[in-house]
């Protein structure tokens, strides 16, 4: 079972250009768009992901979904696709969005492709504007202390706030916890 929490914040800007998409059928699939990190094409990228996640195409096998989205996305689009299925995660990143996994008291950058999961593993997926404000040690410490995904997110947001009072531009992230 997967528990998740998403955080979207203007970060002191008038406009929120990032986005998070979620589909739970047939398995949990997420997309995180780093629109605020793109020079142009953010609107087009948003449309592509909106259509894919609103229709049946999101149910495609991950490789096919990845290719389909990539073909439709504007050049230099920055986003990540993530699918949790059974006891594994598949991910595919383009540009300034990354995911980190906390397992066994350590943290790793989630690689593109397939990665096995165990109960208790935690994943944070966010734009560079979010993740870049946090040290690996801070992410691990907060993940280990937090009782759930929302608490973990709140701890990380507090750290970013301590640095820049959430004025650094759009902040977008997703926390996931694998439960037994």
């Amino acid at each position, binding site marked *: 079972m997967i528990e998740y929490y998403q*955080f979207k*914040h*203007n*970060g*002191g800007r008038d406009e929120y250009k990032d986005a998070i998409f979620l589909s739970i059928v047939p398995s949990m699939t997420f997309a995180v768009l780093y629109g605020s990190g793109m020079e142009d094409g953010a609107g087009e990228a948003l449309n592509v992901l909106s259509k894919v996640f609103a229709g049946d195409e999101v149910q495609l096998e991950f490789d096919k979904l990845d290719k389909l989205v990539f073909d439709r996305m504007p050049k230099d689009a920055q986003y990540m696709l993530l699918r949790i299925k059974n006891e594994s995660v598949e991910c595919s990143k383009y540009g300034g969005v990354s995911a980190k996994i906390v397992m*066994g*008291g*350590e943290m790793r950058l989630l690689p593109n492709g397939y990665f096995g999961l165990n109960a*208790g593993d935690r994943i944070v997926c966010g734009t560079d504007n979010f993740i870049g404000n946090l*040290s690996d*040690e*801070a992410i*691990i*410490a*907060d993940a*280990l*202390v937090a*009782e759930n995904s929302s608490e973990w997110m*709140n*701890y990380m*947001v*507090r750290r970013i*706030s301590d640095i820049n*009072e*959430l*004025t650094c531009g759009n902040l977008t992230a997703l926390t996931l916890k694998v439960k037994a």
Partner: protein
Amino acid sequence: MIDFTLLTDRMSELIGTAGVLFVIAVLSFFYIAVLILINVIKYKKKIDAKGDDFLLPEISYFLETGKREKQEDAFYISPMTDYVDNGLIACVSDGMGGLPDGEVVSKFTTHSLKESYPYSFEDPESTVEVIKDISDKVYEKYKLGSGATLVLVHIKDNHMHFFSLGDSNIILIRDGKATLLNQKQNYVSAIIQKMAEGNMTTRDAYTDNRARGLINFLGNYDCKVLYSKSPMRIYEDDIIIVSSDGVTDTIPLEKLYKYVNPQTSARTSAERLKYAVRNKKNKRQDNYTGIVIKMERSFI
């Protein structure tokens, strides 16, 4: 040839006694050396059984009064002789300023933690129960009229659990960066959460000094202990500082590496940090206490 018959009886007696004492001293020396050797071999066997990458903590500490009249900080470090079997417990408690008996509560806390040693590393909830029990006793006596903060680390087999109540510090220095591991339990956190949920920037959360008031502390009713549900991996040359806020209020986190780094021993780091705080000559310097733990490979 020496003619011993020329010595007086008294002199012969003295030489005899000296000879006996010399033999006893030599035998004692060998006895102690054998005992040490046996213990070292036993210890080495235990360490070898842990594997090649087994790390040992080197520990040093300071406890200073600052400009306060009383010492309201207290600390406890478990015996290193037990490290291989039970790990290391290091904790600092800081009596809450402005409230009476802060020094009594902090000492009661560390003394009670000492009494409950050893702790199960595999079951951090049991350590939380001990802390909550101490907190409940403080609450029963003072009914929120006094309290203390607490930070505690439990290090064993290259992993660390950490526990926190209030706004003292557990800091990890790794790769030249100092990171505060425990979040401060004050109103600022609650305000930031609300503002962030409302899509607001958070400058206002820091402007009111009253927001630094603690939401949780030892002696609070039904306190909530922040603790690691599973342990954090630690590596060679990691440095952990367990300290009261008197240290970080004077030396900010980003400046710590200047004084505490893996190139020097824990003792030197602790000395440098202590003098760094002292040399700031802060007129309102709070009590400041720090335990510096440097993880290193065993030389045995």
